[in-house]
């Protein structure tokens, strides 16, 4: 019986795992970690198909982490054969149990320290070797490792594999097509299908391998270009690459990884250049307009963390600007192009909180402050507050359809009803017109002596104000925070 496994290190020693469960030491040659190996275990007896359940009553299956599929659990009608969901085709046998029993029976243990009735198990050197692609096709559990072959075998090995096995597949298909008897043909097709599926899955990794090779070669060429540029700079008597050199290089190189390395070095230089705040912002604006730089910094935490240490973000909005902050949301400020191209009301600090408004026209505003600023603006006369030279507004709701404006109100009502029920009731616009036996009035009275009535009052007030079920809009208000 031959099985595939993946190597790893444990306690500094070479080990192998077959089904992501137990590990066994590997004697003999030391090979790189995460290599595929073939275990040759003559006489290994596999358990019954789908051995996720105990073989006997004493060993109940219990709890597992990871693969969790049992074909026997499914009736025929449970899945649709027309279903075009991808069939992973994995085998879900409990190899670990079989291998453990096999090694223990043969005394293939190794002492690791204290005596324990659970000895560490070891596979002798003669019972394993490095795997080839043929092994993926030929081993009992090869189909479990198809997604691992990418990165383990070279393009040349895949090419060799294809040269060997594609003709075999063609021959088999030819033979199948020659069968005229329908029953016989079904059998032959079924057998061919399994082989062809596995073959195809392995061959389908080739584009990824090609992509990997392309990327590797490109990186080598890019690094060569960087090296040459450095040598040229040195020859001209310069200490290293200037920003202009780097920007020129970025237009030539092909890989994002090297591009980001170049940019991160540029960021380090910029951060130590001791520029004024304005100069730095102008430089960053120039970089932002460079499409390559923009793309390479979309996800480049190292670049931004270097910039965040030196960038200052003063306000950049004309004094007297008016802004409706009804839909502003609080965020923790991160330095990104989005922030750098936004309008800023008040000085913005990276790592601190700010309110963000996206206007319908597509302009983004960052406002220095926290969520409580929205409440301050709402409470200000006319829903207007001057802040940092601008006028922030949060107008009263125009209609019940504008639920967004009510979310702050919901939070306020919820708190006020608990702390001052009369004041909460008074916030209702037409409170005085409610009849004396209105449930809201009764709840106010009862809330004076029974604190549970406060919640009932809150629900009533919220529903009167918004027309929406209180619990629903409460959840929305919480999520919007």
């Amino acid at each position: 019986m031959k099985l595939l496994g993946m190597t790893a290190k444990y306690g500094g020693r070479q080990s192998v795992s077959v089904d992501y469960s137990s590990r066994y030491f590997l004697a003999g040659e030391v090979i790189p970690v995460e290599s595929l190996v073939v275990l040759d275990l003559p006489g290994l007896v596999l358990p019954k198909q789908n051995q996720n359940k105990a073989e006997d009553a004493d060993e109940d299956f219990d709890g597992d982490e990871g693969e969790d599929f049992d074909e026997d659990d499914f009736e025929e009608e449970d899945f649709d054969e027309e279903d075009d969901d991808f069939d992973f085709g994995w085998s879900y046998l409990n190899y670990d149990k079989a291998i453990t029993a096999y090694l223990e029976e043969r005394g293939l243990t190794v002492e690791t320290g204290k005596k324990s009735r659970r000895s560490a198990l070891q596979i002798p050197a003669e019972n394993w070797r490095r795997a080839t692609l043929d092994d993926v096709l030929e081993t009992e559990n090869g189909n479990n490792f198809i997604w691992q072959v990418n990165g383990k075998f070279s393009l040349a090995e895949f090419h060799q594999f294809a040269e060997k096995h594609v003709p075999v597949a063609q021959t088999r298909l030819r033979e199948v097509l020659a069968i005229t008897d329908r029953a016989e043909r079904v059998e032959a097709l079924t057998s061919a299908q399994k082989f062809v599926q596995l073959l195809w899955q392995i061959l389908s990794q080739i584009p990824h391998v090609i992509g990997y090779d392309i990327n590797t070669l490109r990186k080598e060429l890019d690094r060569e270009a960087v090296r040459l540029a450095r040598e040229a700079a040195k020859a001209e008597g310069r200490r290293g690459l200037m920003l202009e050199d780097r920007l020129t290089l970025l237009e030539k190189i092909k890989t994002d990884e090297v591009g980001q390395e170049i940019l991160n070095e540029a960021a380090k230089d910029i951060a130590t250049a001791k520029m004024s705040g304005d100069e730095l912002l102008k430089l960053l604006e120039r970089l932002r307009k460079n499409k390559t730089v923009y793309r390479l910094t979309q996800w480049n935490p190292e670049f931004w963390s270097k910039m965040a240490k030196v960038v200052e973000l003063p306000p950049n909005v004309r004094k007297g600007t008016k802004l409706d902050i009804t839909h502003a949301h609080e965020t923790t400020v991160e330095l990104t192009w989005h922030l750098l191209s936004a309008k800023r009301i008040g000085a913005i600090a990276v790592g601190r909180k700010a309110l963000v408004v996206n206007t319908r026209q597509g302009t983004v505003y960052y406002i220095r402050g926290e969520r409580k600023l929205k409440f301050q603006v709402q409470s200000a006369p006319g829903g207007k507050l001057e802040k940092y030279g601008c006028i922030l507004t949060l107008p009263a709701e125009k209609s019940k359809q504008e639920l967004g404006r009510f979310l702050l109100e919901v939070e306020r009502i919820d708190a006020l009803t608990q702390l001052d029920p009369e004041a909460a009731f008074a916030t209702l616009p037409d409170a005085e017109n409610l009849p004396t036996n209105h449930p809201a009035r009764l709840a106010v009275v009862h809330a004076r002596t029974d604190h549970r009535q406060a919640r009932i009052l809150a629900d009533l007030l919220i529903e009167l104000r918004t027309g929406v079920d209180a619990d629903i809009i409460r959840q929305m208000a919480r999520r919007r925070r």
Partner: protein
Amino acid sequence: MMTQDTSDTTISLRELKRRYKMNLAQGKALPAYDQPISLPLSTGNPLFDTVLTQKLTSTTTMGEAEHLNRGWNLVKSATPGELQALSGVARGLLNDYKLLLALRAWDDGDEAMTRTFLRALPWHWRLAFPTAVIKPSSQMFTGWKRSIKFRLVENPHYGALYELYRELLAQAPPVSLLKYRRTVHEATALLHYRFEGERERAIHDWCYAEGNAAALNGELEPIGAYVRARQALRTEGISAMLDVLNSASHPVPITSYMGLLGSSGISLKDDTQEKVGDLRTYAVTCASSVESLLRMAEWGEWLNKSHVQTLSNKVKTGILETGLDIPFFKVTKAFLAAPDKVRKMVLDPLYLPLLKHFGAQTAALLPPPNPITFLQPSNYLHMMSFLLYASLSATAPTQLLLIDKKGIDAVDPIPLETIGKHLADSRRDFEEWLLAEFGGLAMRYDYTYNWKAVGKAIDGLDPKAPLVLDLPFADDLAMLQALLPFERVFNLGGVYGAPGELCIAYEYYCDFFIGNRRSSMSVWTRYSDSATQKFGEVMDRLSTFQKLAQAQDNLLKGENNP
């Protein structure tokens, strides 16, 4: 930390759970999802339960204001007997409720009871008492809610409040006045407090002005040191500031020091910073023992042996000799997050003594019979649970049972010193030690267990002795059956539902999931880090639950036999 009452009349976990279910059914207890500290226990008295579990924070369906309203109503309706019982265990209550009880006592005009609850509070809260009386929203809420106008206390007794605050100011250590300047400012402003005498006028200067007068008052060190240091930094630079600080009679608190540095753009992480060595030395000198431990990761890049020696001395005198409670989980997290080099440096002089100290304190809350049994899977060792076992085993009889599909292994006791040596190991070294200690068990990643064998082993344990479970993804009826007779089961994993069992808490995180209609594959990580933290807290809280449950029984007896 309180020690457990070892008398036979101790209310059992089973009884506390039963009382919770009864009260929940009658609407007197909050459901678990609305308990800020989720514990399915009840003393039988909703007030007593609330003061132990209902922090004033938002929960699933209740906001902070609703929790406050509920809690205050319970406090307001408390009988004299209930107040007396609570004053006897004041230190074990949540700070929010120590404050509310102080307010209730103040409203009643009972100054003695007010002082009892105030003394149980940290200085930050004590100094805010007038604010809590006059403008409670400012003390109890954050954000926009701080501006809501309401009162809890009907009669503020302004005259007496004024005098009480004078007393508090006189008692407050200057370091608290330094740290909580804004609190004192707000409280005195609300009181229209008139500062009298030289000391109080210096405090006024500190809170309302630049503090230059405070700097001249020798009784208010380290406020003076701070003000002089700030001035020196502004006018003469870092060296002058360090001279002032090093020559001061009292060190300034680390938070004030870091604030001073931060506001001047000085970073301890910057090796090119002028005088960075001296700046770092002062930081280590002025941090308290706990503060320094919590900053291990932050300071890791530059801590050296000399710093560690200083910290070690602080731990010895500040914690071990005084018996101070420590936030063990936070300290452990900080230790594990620190760079390898730092962990190796601090392991023996700092971390191991603390581990032992925590173990001794927690063990004191788990009275006999013993041993304390830990039941864990052998397929992996969860670090936090293992540390808990190690720390308890140093001071109390314990046993560790490891289970796997073949059965159960009673592991020979492993001394804390043995485990401790390896806590700073690299992954490879730690694995080597696991192999040496546990043999092949360390290599088995099997998640199937022999439940019959587990059941038999559990049947052999004393059901009155504590049992600590940490069995992830392990659910079996046989296990529940075996746990039924046990009185004290602390489950760091998924709950089984046995009557004497308390599930401490855990979180599962899905790292990867892929599936279709026919099959799925998922990879989960389980963190019971918070469970181990909560273990210590729960033990402490459990002790108070039992005391108050007993008090409730006594009150009921008193009512029935007046």
